[in-house]
């Protein structure tokens, strides 16, 4: 990860507005992350509230991991082990699942000067869905939006078929 431009780092901390502008995350979402223990609260209260500069890359990291499909508890566990210094210096690199993160999403954490992942080298991964005992659907990810929509339709149809055939009550193991 590239370093945050030093001109944006205020040693005395950032106001909520500045944090919003620099991270691109809305105040309500910032509060939601604090409420869920992903971000430390500010020093001071009211208009004197100030947030550490490390919150900017931390917010980007949270969004990146959220977009990758991670649950908040998992994100908190991963980022709790990463210091603000490491985030600011770009020493933390996410281990993203290629099944969910598009190259565009992966690029979001990186400053403009940073090297971006090559979109042509996205790994593929097979996901399998059990439609019924002995019937499985295998899907190679990532898929295009339209292909993904067709897969979702297929899964919905399989669900309907199962309900229609009265299989819904089986499998109470």
């Amino acid at each position, binding site marked *: 990860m590239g370093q945050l431009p030093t001109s944006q780092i205020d040693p005395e901390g950032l106001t*909520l507005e500045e944090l919003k502008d620099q991270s691109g995350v*809305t*105040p*309500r*979402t910032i*509060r*939601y992350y*604090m*409420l*869920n*223990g992903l971000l*430390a*609260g*500010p020093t001071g*209260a*009211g*208009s004197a*509230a100030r947030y550490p500069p490390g919150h900017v890359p931390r917010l980007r990291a949270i969004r990146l991991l959220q*977009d*990758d*499909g991670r*649950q*908040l*508890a998992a994100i*908190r566990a991963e980022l709790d082990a990463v210091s603000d210094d490491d985030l600011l210096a770009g020493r933390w690199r996410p281990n993203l699942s290629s099944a*969910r993160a598009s190259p565009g999403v992966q690029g979001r954490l990186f400053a403009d000067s940073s090297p971006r992942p090559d979109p042509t080298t996205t790994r593929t991964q097979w996901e399998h*869905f*059990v439609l019924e005992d002995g019937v499985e659907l295998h899907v190679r990810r990532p898929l295009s939006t339209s292909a*993904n929509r067709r897969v*979702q339709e297929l899964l919905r149809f399989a*669900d309907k078929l199962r309900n229609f055939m*009265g299989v819904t*009550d089986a*499998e*109470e*193991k």
Partner: protein
Amino acid sequence: MPSNTKIQAPTLPTDGRDNDGEGIATLDARADRRYGRATHRSRRHVLVRVVARNEPAVPGKERGPVQIGFAVDRSGSMGGGKLDMAKRAMAEALQQLLIKDSFTVVWFESQVLRMEACQRATAAAVNATIAACQAIDTGGSTALFGGWVTAAETIAAAREPDALARVLLITDGDANQGPSEVAQLGPAARELREKGISTSCIGIGEGYNEALLTAMAREGGGNDYFAAAGADLPGIVARELGEVKAVVARGAVLQIRPSQGVKVQVLSGFRNVWTGTDVHVDLGDLVSDQELTVALRLTLPTGAVGDKCGIECSALIGAEPALVPAQLVEFTLADGATNDSQPRDQQVDREMARQYAARARMAAVDMNRRRRYAAAAHELKQTAEHIAKYMGNDPELRALVAELTQDAERMALEQDELLRKQMYTNSSYGSRSKNLDGSSRRTTDRS
């Protein structure tokens, strides 16, 4: 295991510039069991409860403005007193509006008749509209789509972003002119909803299409009501207006994020979509103190003994997170003996049984209407037998099984359409946490 943990909550900043995420007061989730089998994909159930902020109505206290459009059927079948009751119900509702509110009235039969453009609810405008409506008479067929869309477009042309906008559709018949299918009107209601105009529907008597009106209300983010007779209309319209005025959170969504390999199915009757990483359950506009329960069926992955999996539940209001802690429901994969000896959560079992019963009843009504009597009875009997497997000595579940068995006997024969509608509506309300009169369930209703 379902730890149902609230993630640690530090003190929030208090600069108070962003408090509109607080329309939801609490969110909690609980599972029927703690373990899944390591060697098989197990089915588990989770009950998510959402409670809206309680904001009691205080006389004289300002509420937000509303924009309401009435789209009222005046086709031939609305004779026999129904049209008069619709006029009365509408007049009473209009008189409840404040000057900051606005309204429009559209009548439809084969033709669509709009009384006025959307206008402020001044005493003069309200009285003039009520007087003009007295001349309206019945006749023709049911251009439901045209009437509804005209009301919505009239509101859209005068849209005030701060106002809660809703179209209230009142009809006693099936749409038989213009687009008339669920597949057409459902998405159209959704589209309007995305533009900020929600739709509620009232069906009168036995002739209307409840699947159509339920879909329009569900996709349109509003409510649907069954009026057995025209005389029920004034009470229902007043209740609907009360709900519109009591909204504390617009466009609430329950977001469910499964861990890898967990499959989520929403059993409750709420609209839901898969976004690629989450299931979004559309809860619509929430009124003060409203309580919703969303029933989920999960299919867990297989894995090693001790592996964990589960879902994380959070709430959104208008695409931004609601300020309530996310809830993590976690399961542990276990060996057969541990899995088989685990206790069950009775409260979750009861709610799930009610949800399965509601689904079976709605399906049975549909089959009975199509003269598939044996299939209708089978549907109910099968659900009763399934619940009986785990009911134990629980008196509530035993009573439910007895009711379903009785319903199966009734549905084995052709039933009166009003009874079918009543059964469908009650089940549909139950599957979306509504009271039997169609109003939103509030925490105070339980006490």
